[in-house]
């Protein structure tokens, strides 16, 4: 099924013409409207007007997450704030988040691309979609919500959490498509089993999963236990949100929406293009964003291009599922977490040492995080009440900083292994 067949099945030559036109006008806009890019192009003596082919893209500088933080909140916007109709934010380290904006046209494009993803996964106007992604500043919920509305489906904006209620509504409203993280889909399956509900009795047909890494094994388990066809989709708020790429019913990799995004896969250290088919970092240039265009944004996500044509007829290139990260960012319950965030919270709390260990596990299809913190010696001689109060403070502060709940364990001073330089403070025991 196609949402915009004439675009999704475009001839490569026509696509490249469109990409070049869009790249050139995007470069003109960022080169004149965004001081950050103007300065960067000047410093590096890059003449953006001399970009005459898609290969020339490689002469342009990269944009990093740090650039977004340095220009917090509105420094990278290419339009005046009065043209912006929406702001979203993604978690960042050291308390500084990053902000992205959308014009009315951007929201329209976003809805359209999310509709494409939904449509290629099999969803139609007759479906009832339960969106169990968090709404709010996170782009996941709203992106797919607008896509589903654009498609004409019936949307249940249930947001994340309260699994029993999710299942209740799924039964009562006859939900046919589920949108959430893959681990939450399995959690729903678990709770359903506990409640004695058989998935055969549900109307569920499709599942669109994203926002965290998963595997073929997980897909099979989800398909079996929920009786659906699960597809993967990819997006990130710095670039737009969901709608960047998504799987079709062939379930053989994610089609990139190449008419709106130029995607390179580069070796993470040499930053040279990898041999086609090899794993590397996704680097994305937006071609149609008005409010927040990015040039060669280093996503830190690892994936590879998949060879061959897709039997579905789409001509857009496919990428593999996301195979990991090039930095230490963790994705826990679909939320991005940087270890440095934890460090900065602990640093501010009296009675703790900034030595910690982060243990991530997956228990019954749910991510569980335990933070082990060294407490100063005096605390351990003190009454239990003080200890408990300290644990509670750390737990609350971390929850508000990270946006997810964590367990906190106090350990005695100097019991955690010390590292020279960059140590591995994270123990990720999850298996995808």
């Amino acid at each position, binding site marked *: 099924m196609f949402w915009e067949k004439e675009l999704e099945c475009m001839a490569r030559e026509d696509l490249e013409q469109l990409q070049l*036109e869009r790249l050139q006008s995007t470069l003109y*806009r960022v080169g004149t409207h965004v001081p950050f890019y103007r300065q960067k192009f000047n410093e590096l003596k890059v003449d953006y007007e001399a970009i005459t082919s898609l290969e020339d893209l490689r002469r342009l500088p990269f944009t990093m997450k740090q650039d977004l933080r340095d220009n917090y909140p509105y420094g990278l916007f290419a339009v005046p704030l009065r043209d912006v109709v929406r702001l979203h934010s993604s978690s960042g380290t050291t308390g500084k988040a990053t902000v992205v904006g959308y*014009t009315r*046209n951007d929201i329209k494009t976003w809805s359209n691309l999310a509709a494409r993803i939904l449509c290629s996964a099999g969803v139609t106007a007759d479906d009832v979609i339960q969106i169990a992604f968090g709404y709010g500043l996170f782009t996941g919920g709203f992106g797919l919500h607008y896509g589903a509305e654009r498609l004409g489906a019936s949307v249940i904006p249930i947001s994340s959490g309260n699994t029993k209620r999710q299942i209740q509504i799924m039964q009562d409203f006859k939900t046919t498509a589920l949108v959430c993280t893959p681990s939450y889909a399995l959690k729903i399956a678990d709770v359903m089993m506990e409640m004695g509900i058989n998935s055969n009795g549900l109307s569920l047909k499709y599942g669109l999963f994203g926002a965290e890494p998963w595997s073929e094994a997980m897909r099979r388990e989800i398909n079996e236990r929920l009786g659906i066809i699960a597809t993967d989709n990819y997006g990130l708020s710095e670039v737009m949100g969901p709608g960047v790429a998504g799987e079709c019913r062939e379930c053989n990799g994610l089609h990139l929406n190449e008419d709106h995004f130029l995607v390179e896969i580069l070796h993470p250290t040499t930053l040279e293009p990898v041999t086609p088919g090899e794993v590397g970092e996704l680097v994305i240039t937006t071609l149609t964003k*008005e409010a927040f265009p990015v040039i060669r944004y280093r996503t830190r996500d690892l994936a590879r291009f998949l060879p061959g044509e897709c039997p579905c007829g789409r001509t857009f290139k496919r990428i593999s599922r996301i195979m990991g990260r090039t930095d230490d960012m963790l994705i826990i319950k679909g939320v991005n977490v940087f270890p440095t965030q934890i460090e900065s919270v602990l640093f501010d709390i009296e009675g703790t040492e900034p030595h910690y260990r982060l243990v991530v596990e997956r228990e019954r299809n749910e991510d569980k995080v335990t933070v082990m913190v060294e407490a100063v010696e005096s605390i351990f001689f003190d009454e239990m009440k003080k200890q408990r109060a300290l644990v509670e403070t750390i737990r609350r502060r971390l929850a508000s900083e990270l946006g997810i709940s964590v367990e906190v364990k106090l350990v005695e001073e100097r019991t955690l292994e010390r590292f020279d330089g960059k140590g591995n403070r994270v123990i990720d025991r999850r298996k995808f």
Partner: protein
Amino acid sequence: MLRIRNLEAGYGRLRVLKNISMHVNPGEIVTIIGANGAGKTTLLSTIAGLIRATSGEISFQNQEITRLAASRIPRQGCVMVPEGRQVFASMTVEENLLLGGHSLGRAGRKELPALLDHQYGLFPILRDRRSQLAGTLSGGEQQMLAMARALMSRPSLVMMDEPSTGLAPLIVRDIFQVIVRLRQEGNTVLLVEQNAKAALAIADRGYVLETGKVILQGSAEDLLANKDVQRAYLGREKIQ
């Protein structure tokens, strides 16, 4: 149908067009909007071969036409309706039209009566004035004559340079309605206009030209909703 990559052109040492890339698909109305001096007419003239490109390439129906002489381009199926009509004032309406069919050559001569008839169907006023001298027509009628003359060669792409210039709003509406009809009949139109609002209202896609560069491109609907376009060309922004 028409594909332009990195086109540069100008007059003498003056560089007017800078790195223009654009395309027109069959059956589309594509508009080029922009202020006076943005390079719109230069762009059309370069496509038509009246001005030589200094670099870049123009291909028309998969054929490179960048270096082709202006006189050979209409034969490829790409015709221009010039700005300010430029009808042959001392010739009759019908003579003007017959000249438009010139590029069909000897073989096409037999078709001329049918083509004439078709144009008269499209512009009934021209049938009434067929033996009148073109110079005696009103501005709107001259514009219609210029359009009909271009259509006489049964082109695959019609390029129109500012068809609304100097015409009364009611006449402009008629002219634009004709353009829509041309598309319905399967023609492809590249329309250069200063009247951005009217052009975007009938176009499928558009390019915004500023000082010789394409600064924006997209569907007509998106361009109409774009705040920069509204501020610069539609005069819609209210300053509070």
